[in-house]
C-alpha cells in the first residue's frame, strides 16, 4: 500500500477518536496538601473505582531493605487506627467493594472497585490507612510468610522470573533497578518495624500520590469527599531524589542460570532511556513491530517459519529512570540456546540494517489505536491508563494524544533507535537451561 493512503486512513481514525472521548472530560484538582485528584465521570454502570498511585517502588530501596516497597503494599491492608487488622478488607467487601494492589520498580498502586453508592466508605478506608497506619508486629511476622510464599511461587512457576532477576542484576551495577521488586529473601526475613515506619513516613505522604477516580460519580461529590477525607492529611517533605545514574555499559554481559527445563530460555536486555525521553514512542513502536501478533518480526521468523522458538515476546516497561528493553524466547525442540540467541540477534540486525516497512509501521499505529479504544471500554482501563500517563509521561492528557504521538514516528526513527540502542556493548544476555554446555561444544 502507498504511504499517502495510509496516512489519510490514520488521520481519519484520529478524528474519529475525538468524537469518542476527550481530554476535557477528565477533571483534575489539587488538594492543599499537594495530593492530585483526577475524575472521569462515566455512568454506564453503577460502579466506580479509585486508583491511588504512590511514587515509591523498588528504585527507592537499598540493600538491606530490598523488597520493602512491595512488602509495604501488603502492610497497607493490615490495620490502621479506625480500621484495625483485617477490617480494611472486611469493611470494603461488606460494602460490595473489592481491591488489589501492585508494586513495580517505580510505583505502588492501590486499586479499589466498588458500587458507586459506597464511595464514601472507600474514602474513609483509604484516608484512615494513609493518615494512621498502625504497624502491628504480629501482622508483620505473618505477612513475611505470605511474601516469602509469593516470592517462592513466582520462582516455582515462572522461568522468566528466574532468568530476569539474574539479567537485571547483571545489566545494572549501580542503579537500584538491579534487584527484583519482590526483593532478596534475606531482606524479606530481616527488615524491622522501624524500617517500615520510616518508609511510611517518607513516602506515604499525600504530596507523593496521584488519585484517579472513574465511573458513576460526580466531580462535585468527589471534591467534597476528597476535601473532607484526604485534605486534612498533612504533607511531608519531598522524598530524597534517586540520583544514581547507571554508568554506560562498556561490553556485553552474559549470565547463566541452571534449572530443569525441557528447552533453553534466552533473555536479551538492552539499556534504553526513561519513558519521558524523546525516543520512547519509537522504541515502543519497535517493541510492537518485533513481537505484537503473529505477523510480527520475531514471532513470524522464530516461531512460525523456522521453529527456533515455541514462543517469544519483547517488553519495555514504563520507567522513571533509564531501564531495559527485554527480548525473551523459549527454544523449540532440539534448538540450543546459542542457536536461539543467534537467531534473535539476526532479527535485530535485520532491523538495524534494513529498517521496517511503511506497512509494518502503519500496522502498529493501527494496533495502538485499537488498544486505546479497548482502554476506553472500561472504567478500569480509564483510571489505570490516566494514572500511568500522569506519572510516566508527566500529564494524563497525553493519553488522549498518544495516537498523534505514534503518528509522528517514521520508519527512519525506528531504524535510528534500533541502531542506537541494540548494540552488542549495550546488551546483557541471559540463558536458562539444564546445565552449561561443555567447553568447545558447538551449536547446532
Amino acid at each position: 500500500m502507498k504511504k499517502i493512503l495510509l496516512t489519510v486512513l490514520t488521520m481519519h481514525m484520529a478524528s474519529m477518536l475525538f468524537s469518542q472521548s476527550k481530554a476535557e472530560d477528565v477533571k483534575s484538582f489539587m488538594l492543599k496538601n499537594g495530593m492530585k485528584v483526577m475524575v472521569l465521570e462515566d455512568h454506564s454502570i453503577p460502579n466506580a473505582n479509585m486508583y491511588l498511585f504512590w511514587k515509591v517502588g523498588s528504585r527507592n530501596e537499598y540493600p538491606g531493605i530490598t523488597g520493602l516497597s512491595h512488602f509495604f503494599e501488603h502492610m497497607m491492608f493490615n490495620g490502621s487506627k479506625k480500621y484495625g487488622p483485617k477490617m480494611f478488607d472486611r469493611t470494603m467487601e461488606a460494602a460490595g467493594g473489592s481491591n488489589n494492589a501492585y508494586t513495580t520498580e517505580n510505583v505502588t498502586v492501590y486499586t479499589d472497585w466498588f458500587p458507586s453508592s459506597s464511595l464514601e466508605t472507600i474514602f474513609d478506608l483509604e484516608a484512615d490507612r494513609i493518615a494512621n497506619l498502625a504497624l502491628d508486629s504480629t501482622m508483620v511476622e505473618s505477612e513475611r510468610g505470605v511474601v516469602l510464599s509469593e516470592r517462592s511461587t513466582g520462582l516455582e512457576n515462572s522461568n522468566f522470573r528466574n532468568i530476569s532477576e539474574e539479567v537485571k542484576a547483571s545489566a545494572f551495577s549501580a542503579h537500584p533497578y538491579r534487584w527484583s521488586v519482590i526483593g532478596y529473601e534475606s531482606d524479606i526475613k530481616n527488615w524491622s518495624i522501624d524500617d517500615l515506619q520510616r518508609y511510611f513516613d517518607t513516602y506515604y505522604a499525600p504530596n507523593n500520590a496521584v488519585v484517579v477516580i472513574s465511573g458513576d460519580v460526580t466531580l462535585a461529590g468527589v471534591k467534597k469527599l476528597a476535601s473532607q477525607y484526604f485534605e486534612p492529611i498533612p504533607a511531608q517533605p519531598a522524598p530524597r531524589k534517586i540520583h544514581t545514574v547507571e554508568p554506560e555499559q562498556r561490553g556485553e554481559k552474559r549470565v547463566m542460570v541452571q534449572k530443569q527445563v525441557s528447552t533453553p530460555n534466552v533473555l536479551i536486555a538492552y539499556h534504553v532511556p526513561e519513558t519521558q525521553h524523546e525516543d520512547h514512542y519509537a522504541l515502543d513502536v519497535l517493541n510492537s513491530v518485533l513481537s505484537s501478533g503473529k505477523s510480527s518480526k520475531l514471532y513470524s521468523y522464530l516461531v512460525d517459519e523456522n521453529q527456533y522458538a515455541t514462543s517469544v515476546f519483547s517488553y519495555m516497561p514504563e520507567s522513571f529512570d533509564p531501564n531495559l528493553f527485554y527480548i525473551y524466547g523459549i527454544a523449540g525442540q532440539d534448538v540450543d540456546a546459542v542457536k536461539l540467541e543467534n537467531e534473535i540477534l539476526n532479527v535485530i540486525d535485520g532491523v538495524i540494517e534494513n529498517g521496517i516497512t511503511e506497512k509494518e509501521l502503519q500496522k502498529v499505529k493501527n494496533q495502538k489505536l485499537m488498544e486505546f479504544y479497548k482502554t476506553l471500554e472500561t472504567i478500569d482501563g480509564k483510571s489505570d491508563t490516566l494514572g500511568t500517563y500522569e506519572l510516566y509521561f508527566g500529564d494524563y492528557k497525553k493519553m488522549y494524544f498518544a495516537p498523534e504521538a505514534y503518528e509522528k514516528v517514521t520508519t527512519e526513527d525506528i531504524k535510528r533507535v534500533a541502531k542506537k540502542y541494540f548494540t552488542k556493548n549495550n546488551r546483557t544476555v541471559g540463558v536458562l537451561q539444564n546445565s552449561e554446555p561443555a567447553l568447545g561444544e558447538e551449536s547446532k
Partner: protein
Amino acid sequence: MKNTINKLFVFFVALLLTNSIVAQEDFKLPEYTKIQLKNGLTIYLMERHEVPLIQFTAVFPAGAVNDVKEKSGLAAVTADALVLGSKNYTKSQIEENTEFLGASISSGAGKESAYLVSSFMKKDQKVVMDILKDVLLNPTFPTDEVEKMVSRKIAEMDQMKESPRSVLSNYYNKFVFGEHPYGNPEEGTKASLQQIQNKDLINFYKEQYNPSKSAIAIVGDFNTKSMKVEVEKLFGAWKSSAKTGNILPDLPVTDKARVLLVNKEDARETTFYIGGPGISRNNPDFVGIRVINTILGGRFTSWLNDELRVNSGLTYGARSSFTPYKLGGTFVISTFTANENTEKTIDLALETYKKLHTKGLDEEILTSAKNYVKGQFPPDYETNSALSILLTDMYIYDFDESYINTFTKQVDALNTQKAAELIQKYFPKDNFQFVLIGKASEIGELAKKYGEVEQLEITNDGF
C-alpha cells in the same frame, strides 16, 4: 501483587452499610436480538456504541469431549488450525490482513466447545467478516502448517509442566473423571499429538462443525438491521453434514478418598487441589452456590484465604471454586505452600472447609457476601467481549438472560436457612480427591494420610 485470586461472581447493588433504602435499579442485560438462520445457526446481535469496536464470538460443539484417546488433542488442533488457511486466504494473509487493521482473530477448543473469536474496528467490518466467514466455512488445513503447529504443541507439553500451576487442573480432571470424556486433556499428550495427521482434522471438522449446533454472538458498534443482512449473507451459506450431539455417559462416582501425587523432583513447594463433585452451569441454585463459595474461598476475606494466608502466613493465596460444565463439574480448594508446610496447610484447609458443614453461615457474613457479589457484578459485563461470551455461554449451557436480570433478586432471596440447604446439597462432605504436585521424597509419606495414593512422575507423558 496483593493477591491474584480471581474475581468470581458479582452483582449490582446500591446500598449497604447504611440502613437507608436507596431506590435501586437492577442490573439488566442490554437488549439483544436472537435469530436462527435456515441452516440452524443461532445468531445473537447486541448493539453497543461506546467505542467504535465490534466483537465476534462463535462457538461450535467441537470440544475435547469429542476426542478419542489415541488422538487426544485433535479437537484443539482442529480449532487452532481453522486460521491456518482457507479457500480464499493463506495463513499469512489471514494474519497480516487482520493485524494490519489492529484487529485480531483467534480460535481454540475447550472441554465442551470450540470457538472462533475476533475483535475489530467498526470501519473494518467487511474485510474482517469476510475472512471470518472463509476460515469457518472453508478451512483448508494445509499440511505443512498443521505439522508445524503440532510439533510446536508437542514441545509445549513439556514446557507447561515446568509450571505446576498450569497443569494442575489437567491432572485433576483426568484423576476424577477418568475415562469419561471430561477427563480428556484439551492439549492431548505428546504420544497422541504425534498420531494426528491433516486428514484427521478434515474429518473432525466435517463431523463436528455443525451450524445447527453452533452460535455466533456479535456485540458492538453496528446497526442490527444491516448486520442481520450481512450475517445471513455470510453464514447462511454454511452447509454441513455433521452428525450432531454426542451423548455423554454419566459422570463417574467416587466412594473413597484418593490422592494423586505427581512427583516433581525439583519442586520447592507443593501445589494442590482438594476437591469433589461440582455442579452444571445451568443448575438452578447456581447463584446461591456462588454466594456461599464467596464466603468459603471466593474473595480476599474468605475463610480459606483468611486462615491459610492472613492468620498463618502459610501461602500467598488460598481459594475455592466451582468449574461448571454441561453435565456437572468440579469443586476444588486450591493453594500452594513450601514443601515443609505441606501437611500443616492441607490439614488447615480441611479443618477450615469443615466449618462450612459444622458451623454454617451467620446472618452477618451472608449479608456481607451478598453485598459483595452484587457490588462486583456489573463490571463483569462491561466489555463487548464479556457480553459476547455471556451470550454464547447461554447458548452452550442452556440458560437465559434471567440469570442476569434476576441476579439481584436471587442473591437477595438467599437466607441462612436456604444457605444451609445448599451447603448440605452441593458442598462435598467426604471422599475428597487430592492432587498434589510436589517433591515425592518429602511429601510422599504424609500423602498417605489422606487416602489411597497413586503416584506419577511429572516427566511422564500425559496426565
